[in-house]
């Protein structure tokens, strides 16, 4: 058995996924480590990878001319980083940098898309899970836009 299989099965993003689907995903996965300050991906890069974070924090960043680099979200252990692999034109919309030492599983985006196309049940399951993350982050972004603490 590939050693990544139990790691994938236990990660909150993939928890409960059918073992057969976990086995399919393992073929696209590899262990990665980023040191603090190391770039994970850059805005505009091809979105070749998708990460599930096991340890540490990653800052999702955007460079704002005149203001410098702004961190717009932090992705931590148990969360996923990047969904541009799923959405054409498969380019990174933001940059990401390790805020601490980060251990993650990296998935080859093209490999994942291919497996999802071949196995629609896997594709639907992954899409539902990514959609939940998107919904959570949209909700969080809306709360941030409200600037709730301006007077509190």
């Amino acid at each position, binding site marked *: 058995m590939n050693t990544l299989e139990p790691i994938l099965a236990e990660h909150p993003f993939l928890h409960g996924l059918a073992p057969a689907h976990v086995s399919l995903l393992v073929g696209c996965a590899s262990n990665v480590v980023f040191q603090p300050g190391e770039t994970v991906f850059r805005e505009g890069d091809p979105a070749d990878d998708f990460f599930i974070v096991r340890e540490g*924090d990653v*800052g*999702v960043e955007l460079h704002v001319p005149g*203001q*410098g*680099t*702004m*961190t*717009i*979200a*932090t992705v*931590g*252990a*148990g969360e996923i980083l990047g969904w541009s692999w799923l959405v054409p034109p498969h380019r990174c919309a933001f940059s990401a940098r390790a*805020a*601490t030492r980060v251990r993650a599983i990296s998935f080859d985006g093209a490999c994942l898309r291919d497996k999802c196309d071949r196995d629609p049940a896997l594709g639907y399951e992954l899409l539902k899970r990514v959609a939940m993350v998107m919904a*959570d982050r949209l*909700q*969080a972004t809306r*709360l*941030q836009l*409200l*600037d*709730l*603490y*301006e*007077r*509190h």
Partner: protein
Amino acid sequence: MEAVAADPMLPAPWRVARVRRDTADTFTLDLAPAGGAAPAPFAPGQFNMLWAFGVGEVPISISGDPARPAVLRHTTRAVGTVTRAMARLRRGGVLGVRGPFGSAWPTDEAEGADVVLVAGGIGLAPLRPALLRILARRRRYGRVVVAYGTRTPADVLFRDDLQRWQARGDVEVLVTVDRAAGGWAGRVGVVPSVLRLASFDPARTVAMVCGPEVMMRFAAQELLRRGVAPARIHVSVERNMKCAVGFCGHCQLGPDFVCRDGPVLPWARLATRLLVPEV
């Protein structure tokens, strides 16, 4: 706790012993009894009516240590006429104080349980006394989590306290800001998201939540999603308080007067009420 002065409508004079600027617009006043006023024991979560003479009166939660009632501490933001007048006070200045009033955080009922404190913005101030009491009796509780969100790194309140609590090793402190420029090594995101990282057993957790009402609604939803019972989630609500003793009705929230029945109320009692804009 029965600690209201003989005439709850009569302010007692308290002298400013210390002023601390916490952030650009937030300050802490330590008050000492003046003119024969007696120290006022308080329970975590209670508030006082503070009177800036010649300007007006506002309800401000107590942010001090309940074990040290001789120093009456309030932390607030200068956002209105009265709080801006209070921000101009210096050591030796005098404020009128009525109180303490209102219900308390359930620190006694939470003994034996995991405790999750969720604060947004200045909402950390009313929760500080609860945490100080819990830490003074640390062995009586399970896991203790402090999840705190604010606007930017410059707005982080009680920075020294947060570092001290984190350094203890028996409190999980999760701090997040809504936005940050480079140089901030902490998290960026909203408090409900940060709650997902917190380690606690939902089945034996008591949660105490204080912050902007929208933030409290979403934090409560996340706690419920994790499995915390509605009756074990407590929030501190704000309404327009005037008399503070349940006479005038300005702070009515459905069947409750926030000054008398609150400000700390169980989520089970509030959940649907807070979704009614007319209330």
